[in-house]
């Protein structure tokens, strides 16, 4: 659907505008007085709508990602809060339905999840079989942090550890920034190296 909207944005917009013109024309044909109320309502909705959409657009996008992660996941069911999920394959044009996994780079392993740090730094998150476990996250502004993951096998054993680069959160962040969408990218050469990294 998203792909169709992106591809046919102009024709779809033209159809919608044509419908609006037809509606207004019908109103005018009943007399100009019928248009006044419509114009006032449209003007108020327009004046309030433009700034509201501009303000809310980034938030709606992030909310959409959060909902998608927590309810649908990245191909293997919902991903609980504070759990990072490693997509088991790289992006490829062969994925069905033109999903997001057809838009990335085919030489990266994507890892994503939703962190909720309202209760402070998380020492570790409860693991689920086959999922990467968040080992440490610090969210105080200016403090250095690093995400480390362990891939837990289906037998419950923990194996190879994988850490992000050391980084520092921006000092402008406030304490209200306690919920984060986290993505990581792991460069992978081949399927063999991909399997080695996660087994």
């Amino acid at each position, binding site marked *: 659907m998203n792909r169709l909207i992106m591809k046919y944005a102009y024709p779809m917009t033209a159809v919608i505008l044509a419908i609006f013109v037809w509606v207004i024309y019908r109103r005018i044909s009943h007399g100009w007085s019928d248009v006044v109320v419509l114009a006032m*309502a*449209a003007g108020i*909705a327009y004046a309030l*709508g*433009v700034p509201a*959409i501009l*303000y809310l657009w980034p938030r709606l996008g992030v909310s959409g990602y959060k909902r998608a992660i927590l309810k649908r996941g990245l191909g293997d069911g919902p991903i609980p809060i504070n759990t990072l999920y490693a997509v088991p394959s790289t992006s*490829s044009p062969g994925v069905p339905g033109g999903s997001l996994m057809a838009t990335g780079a085919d*030489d990266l392993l994507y890892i994503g999840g939703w962190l909720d740090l309202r209760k402070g730094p998380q020492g570790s998150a409860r693991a689920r079989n086959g999922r990467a476990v968040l080992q440490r996250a610090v969210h105080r502004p200016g403090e250095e942090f690093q995400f480390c993951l362990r891939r837990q096998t289906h037998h419950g054993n923990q194996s190879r550890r994988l850490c992000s680069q050391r980084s520092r959160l921006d000092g402008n962040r406030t304490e209200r920034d306690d919920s984060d969408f986290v993505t990581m990218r792991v460069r992978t050469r081949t399927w063999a190296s991909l399997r080695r990294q996660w087994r």
Partner: protein
Amino acid sequence: MRNVLVWVSGSGVVQGVIIGAALAFLTAIIIMNLVGRRITTTVNGWSAIRQCGQPGNGILVRAACAKALPVVNVFEEAAYWTTAKDASRQALSGRHEYSLHFPAGELPPSDAFWSLTPTDVAGYMVNNPTHRNSVGDRSNLAKNVDGSIDVYLLPTSPGEHQQNWLPTPSGAFKLILRAYLPGAAILNGSYRLPPVVRAQ
């Protein structure tokens, strides 16, 4: 109450709100596109936005970034360039053959890696028989005698330059070049990607 509802439905209020909201949406899209264009730098046909993800960005820049590059990395971590046009400003198409000429030592400098991926105009990768969907610093690209590197962009095999061939979709397409942990020359703006040149 019923009379009020009848008046509202017949007076044009509902239609007006729908029309106003839809026009507001279109206007917001246009504003985001204009702001996105203002903060986009284009060199040799390659466009990049350096400003996204910065905490000091205002409402308009944040909205424009969220529309153009949702949940994007900061430029210092991952630099993205896109182009949908060749050096003569014609749209890229699988009906034509193109090349990308990197002079010796002028591959994208990065402390991690870089890759070049063709997609359809909506940004989705397109299947090709070779399953080669990108080239990059690990592709063992063959060098010319002078040390420069040519990447050949066309839908069918170029024959002798197979090693440097990146299959393109048969229709209109665009190119995305990603450099992870971009080097100083990229960050200070002195590095320039070469233009996509259409073969004569």
